[in-house]
């Protein structure tokens, strides 16, 4: 089960299924990629055009003409910093939840989940007023903080599961070897939980990158990320589909890269052979 049972027909079947999945997942995206090189006329041709004479006007039009490229930078800054913060703050907490035992632990743990439950719509206004009173409104910090605290629940919950998978004797060994408890976590356990951390990081990044409401409300015009920019292309003079597509495509690139890089951590069996039993 855990080892790849490489029986021919099954492998073939598996790949078939996966292929279908990839096609389903990818086709709309590819269509958008194509759309980003289409004129409005080509885009709205009554039969879908897969072959057409591409226009390269959309990208410059939106990123230079509409000056959207700084938005991409903003998105990057916001997502990267909030992801980093999330892992930095969330992982240790998760570790404690997985290992330590203190009164009310489980309550606190569940509490983290509850922070995710209220509809953002109605948290947004209070948050706006709160940040205004803090004087942080219209700054990038505001969103970063918002996103971080919002994704913490995800981090804490996901990471706990992964840390719990690691035999505690390994922490103990590290401690015996002279590490502080924190040291053991940072230098031994964290690497062992790499797959979990990787997955979590990817999710944090994506969620932050794509978040709209807080980003829209808390940041000033100059600091607004791409998500906030996209609707700006939906005008009564007609949605600028080519440009929407262009933005969508560009917006996915960083995530694609980030995900692809982080995926290296997604390897199996890190804890094999650690302990007996």
């Amino acid at each position, binding site marked *: *089960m855990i*080892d790849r*049972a490489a029986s021919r027909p099954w492998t073939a079947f*598996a790949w078939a299924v*996966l292929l279908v*999945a*990839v096609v389903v997942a990818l086709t*709309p995206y590819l*269509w*958008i990629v194509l759309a980003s090189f289409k004129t409005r006329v080509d885009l709205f041709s009554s039969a*879908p055009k897969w072959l057409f004479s591409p226009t390269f006007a959309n990208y410059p039009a939106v990123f230079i003409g509409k000056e959207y490229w700084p938005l991409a930078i903003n998105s990057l800054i916001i997502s990267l910093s909030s992801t980093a913060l999330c892992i930095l*703050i*969330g992982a240790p*907490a998760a570790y404690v939840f*997985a*290992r*330590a*035992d*203190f*009164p*009310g*632990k*489980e*309550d*606190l743990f569940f509490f983290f*989940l*509850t*922070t*995710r*439950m209220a*509809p953002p719509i*109605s*948290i947004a*206004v*209070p*948050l706006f007023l*709160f940040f205004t009173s803090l004087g942080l409104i219209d700054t990038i910090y505001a969103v970063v*903080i918002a996103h971080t*605290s*919002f994704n*913490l629940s*995800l981090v804490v919950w996901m990471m706990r*599961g992964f840390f719990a998978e690691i035999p*505690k004797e390994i922490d103990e060994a590290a401690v015996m070897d002279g590490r*502080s408890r*924190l040291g053991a976590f940072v230098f031994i356990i964290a690497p062992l939980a790499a797959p979990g951390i*990787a997955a979590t990081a990817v*999710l944090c990044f994506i969620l932050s*990158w*794509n978040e709209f409401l807080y980003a829209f409300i808390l940041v000033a015009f100059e600091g607004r990320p791409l998500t906030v920019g996209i*609707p700006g292309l939906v005008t009564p003079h007609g949605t600028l*589909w080519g440009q929407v597509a262009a933005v*969508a495509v560009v917006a996915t690139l960083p*995530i*694609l890269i980030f*995900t692809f890089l982080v*995926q*290296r951590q*997604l390897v199996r*069996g890190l804890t094999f052979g650690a302990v007996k039993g």
Partner: protein
Amino acid sequence: MTSLPVTSNTSGKTRGAFLLDRGVGPLLVLPATILVVIFLVGPFYYMVYTALTDLSFADATRKGAFVGFDNFRRLMRDDPLFWNSFLLTLKFVVVAVAMEFVIGFALALLIFKYVVRQRLLTTLLLIPMMLAPVAVGLIWRLLLQGDFGMVIYYLRAVGLLAQNAAVLSQPDLVFPAIVAIDIWQWTPFVTLVMLAGLMSLPRSPFEAAMMDGAGPLRIFLDVMLPLLRPIIALVLLLRGIDAFKEFDKVFIMTGGGPGTLTELVSIYAYRVNFRNWDLGYGAAVAFMVYLVVLILCSVFYKAVYWSAKPSSGLPAGAKP
């Protein structure tokens, strides 16, 4: 946001507490807790308070006077729209999350078992999740556009859709459509998390099960599922909660229409808060949603996650 009291088995200074060089444990949880408390719980309580007032940004006569439970009374007694959208949302969550989980888990298993170098494949599979919900909404609106939509075109071409029919304006098709699109977007989430979960499973119990004569199915049921249980619970909880808040995609695609066929509770909340600026009532709506989600989750949590709590020190009673 107060969580339901979940009794935990803590007996003074136990191994864990001691191992964490004493006190360090809670200390490490502190930053996260503080952050969350200040920036989420604070606003949340403000919201709860607002729910007891008549605050409105539209009506100059309503400057936030305390009105007790009027808003909730109105919500309970005479707001069919809310309940309508609420039930719709429940339906949406259950169907979507269930499908996402099944498909996503299946894909994760296949990748895990049959794909050696899964890096590129997984990345590609994750693409739908990488698109901003706003973009997803726009994109699918375009793909399903009755006259120029690519998907529509091929649906009609293969005869899955009548020539004079369209998806998003078809009362009987529109809800399935948004569910399908949510599945399209969030199945990768399940895949990713479950894959990571599978990756970190120990090997020996599986070998043991093989020796004990268990076939693939039994092994899956008796060994893999229990070991993955915390992760599974996590996936379902997170997806469930997030699905409950589904907004951008649907709002952009259908605006809740035709009629109120796709008006999810979050869309309703949006109208109340950001269109009518009836914040008092909006807060009440939000709180109601929060309450239900909270109850559902804590029930589920106790049922599934709790009993699979990784560090359950109590011995499980043996069968007679």
